[in-house]
């Protein structure tokens, strides 16, 4: 089977190369525009451009780019997201591939900056207009321009609040209030939280969604800066509450076998649970929930658990376009990235896909209240806690969180292992 494995690796890389090959029929790897050459081509890889609801975004970006570089054609290759980083890994190993590519912020791009071109000199003008740069930087350099912002607002179902006799316009501000509200909601026949932890993603949302109410502002900033004190009682509290809430039956049943994408979202959509820590862009966001719950989707801040904590919206750059190191013409590739983050294009992304775009100048006054609540919190928002962790630690956290829920590992044990993994980098 090793041979099989190798075969499939050979096949996949072959396919990947064929993918670039067909995208760049000129043969000279990925043909970027070289000075004086006639028509040349930039190849973009992403997992978005095939979606119907981003068609106008891609169109606007292309038009903007065509104005600046009429002699360069752009080809978008939409890859399946499941295989995206595997295909990209094969391309990076071979040093050939797309000129411009889409990345998730955080670990996914930081692990691969060796293959990317620092963009600082090209995007200086956009620094003020766009938010979310930190998720695409490493060691003081920026490697991608943010397209959307991704974060974890706590959504709640106003209809269930009404049913439980609570004021839907006054979501709980402290943990105690939340717990008493949850007791009322339980009586009304619904669960408190919709939680999906089959992929180990539930804990990521939990950590980031509630973290600002549990850690003190100093602990929070230190965590983001890389000085993470896993022995602190507040960090432990995050995992203690994770267990407590599940033990008290406040989550939907079988959280460890419920997928966050999209079974947990469906639980919330169906009105079976009153709260969910969701997303700002892509899926599981205000627009998705709104399709089922109408204007009954509310957004609340993290409840205060620790005295002195200052709840804030956790968010980072969600997805962003980067330029490969091997591109022939870095200038036009970087210009393409700038077109992909132009106000016009991002406005189309926001209206089409419902994503919270990175452009802070987009007008959201016409949007549902959930959006304006989220956007109003952007200014005071901070980077999400789990995004600061390495992908290895996040993976471990997923498995440990399942163990904590099932009782096969204690909170202390889990935190100890996470601390060790975090220290190892």
């Amino acid at each position, binding site marked *: *089977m*090793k*041979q*099989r*494995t*190798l*075969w499939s*690796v*050979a096949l996949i890389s072959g396919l990947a190369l064929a993918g670039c090959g067909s995208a760049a029929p000129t043969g000279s790897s990925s043909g970027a525009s070289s000075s004086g050459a006639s028509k040349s081509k930039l190849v973009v890889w992403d997992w978005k451009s095939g979606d119907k609801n981003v068609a106008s975004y891609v169109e606007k970006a292309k038009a903007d780019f065509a104005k600046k570089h009429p002699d360069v054609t752009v080809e978008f290759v939409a890859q399946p997201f499941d*295989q995206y*980083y*595997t295909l990209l*890994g094969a391309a990076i*190993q071979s040093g050939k591939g797309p000129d411009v590519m889409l990345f998730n912020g955080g670990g996914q791009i930081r*692990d*691969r900056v*060796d293959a990317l071109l620092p963009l600082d000199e090209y995007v200086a003008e956009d620094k003020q207009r766009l938010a979310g740069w930190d998720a695409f930087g490493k060691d003081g350099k920026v490697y991608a321009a943010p397209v959307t912002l991704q974060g974890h607002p706590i959504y709640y179902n106003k209809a269930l609040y009404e049913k439980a006799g609570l004021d839907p316009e006054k979501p709980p501000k402290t943990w105690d209030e939340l717990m008493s509200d949850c007791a009322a909601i339980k009586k009304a026949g619904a669960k408190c939280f919709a939680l999906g932890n*089959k*992929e*180990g993603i539930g804990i990521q949302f939990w950590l980031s969604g509630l973290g600002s109410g549990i850690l003190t502002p100093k602990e929070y900033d230190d965590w983001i800066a890389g000085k993470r004190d896993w022995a602190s009682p507040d960090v432990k509290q995050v995992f203690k509450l994770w267990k407590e809430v599940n033990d008290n039956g406040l989550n939907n*049943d*079988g*959280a*460890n*076998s*419920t997928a966050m994408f999209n*079974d947990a979202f469906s639980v919330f959509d169906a009105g079976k649970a009153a709260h969910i820590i969701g997303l700002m862009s892509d899926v599981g966001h205000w627009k998705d929930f709104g399709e089922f719950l109408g204007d009954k989707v509310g957004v609340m801040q993290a409840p205060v658990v620790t005295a002195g904590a200052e709840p804030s919206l956790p968010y980072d750059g969600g997805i962003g376009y980067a330029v490969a190191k091997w591109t022939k013409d870095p200038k036009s590739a970087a210009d393409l990235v700038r077109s992909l983050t132009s106000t016009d294009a991002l406005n189309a992304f926001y209206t089409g896909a419902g994503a919270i775009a990175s452009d802070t100048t987009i007008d959201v006054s016409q949007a549902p209240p959930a959006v304006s609540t989220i956007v109003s919190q952007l200014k005071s928002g901070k980077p999400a806690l789990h995004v600061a962790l390495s*992908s*290895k630690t996040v*993976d471990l956290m*997923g*498995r440990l969180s*399942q*163990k904590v829920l*099932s009782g*096969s590992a204690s909170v202390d044990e889990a935190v100890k292992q996470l601390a060790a993994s975090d220290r190892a980098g």
Partner: protein
Amino acid sequence: MAPAVLIIVVLRLWPLLLGVNFSFTGDGDRNGTAVGFDNYVELLSDPLFRTALGNVGLLVVLLPVAVAIPGLLATFIYLRVPGNRVYRSVYFFPAVLSPVIVGAIFNLILAFDGPLNTLLGTIGLGPVDWLGDPGVAMFTVVGVHIWATFGMALVVFLAGFSTLDSALLDAARVDGASLPQTIWHVIIPGLSRTIQFVFVTTMIGMLTSMFGLLYVMTAGGPEGSTYLPEFYIWTQQGQMNRPALASAASTVLFLIMLVVGLAQMSVLRRAGRED
């Protein structure tokens, strides 16, 4: 001769050697530099990889079950239980479904609030978290895999039965043998070659084609309890950006498969000689 050798060398052996060579280099900051056995040391100290290897052992232990089920059902069909014609086609049906579809179907059936648990509830049994309990999930996935693939083994068994001497069965019946006695003393010895063949093919099937089911049904979880080496390799290469570590894991998997393959070949050869 020469072209065949060339194809094997260029397309099989050479990549294999490249992969093994690659497993002795580092990832990330140490990309491209030789690191000796570091990747192998890391593998052995990774509890996740040890779980994956342990699960390979579990598959071997469960192999007799995976062979016995189609064998028994084929026996019933051969002995013409009522409705055997219907069963013959019904049993084979899952074998034509892709693992992804099978996985998606069973994800629905086995969900915590799914129909199976509802059924268990009506007869007074507590819900089982089929895919969320680390002690249960691996057995669930293997069970679904057996359900999805036993049709092929069943067909092989039925073919084997057609070579069975019916005079022996008649003699057993005349002697007043019970059904278990007939199976144990007549059918099993008569089908020994078929059984060995099914053992080998089922083993290969279990070790090579579980990925799709695992990916769809558990993604290695819960608590990493359903990892298999293939899934580990995929995760390290695609999700963790550790291609060299993945190569080391592939090399270990290759060595295991080499041993298993050689053992199977000797079993088959011995079976052929008995003829």
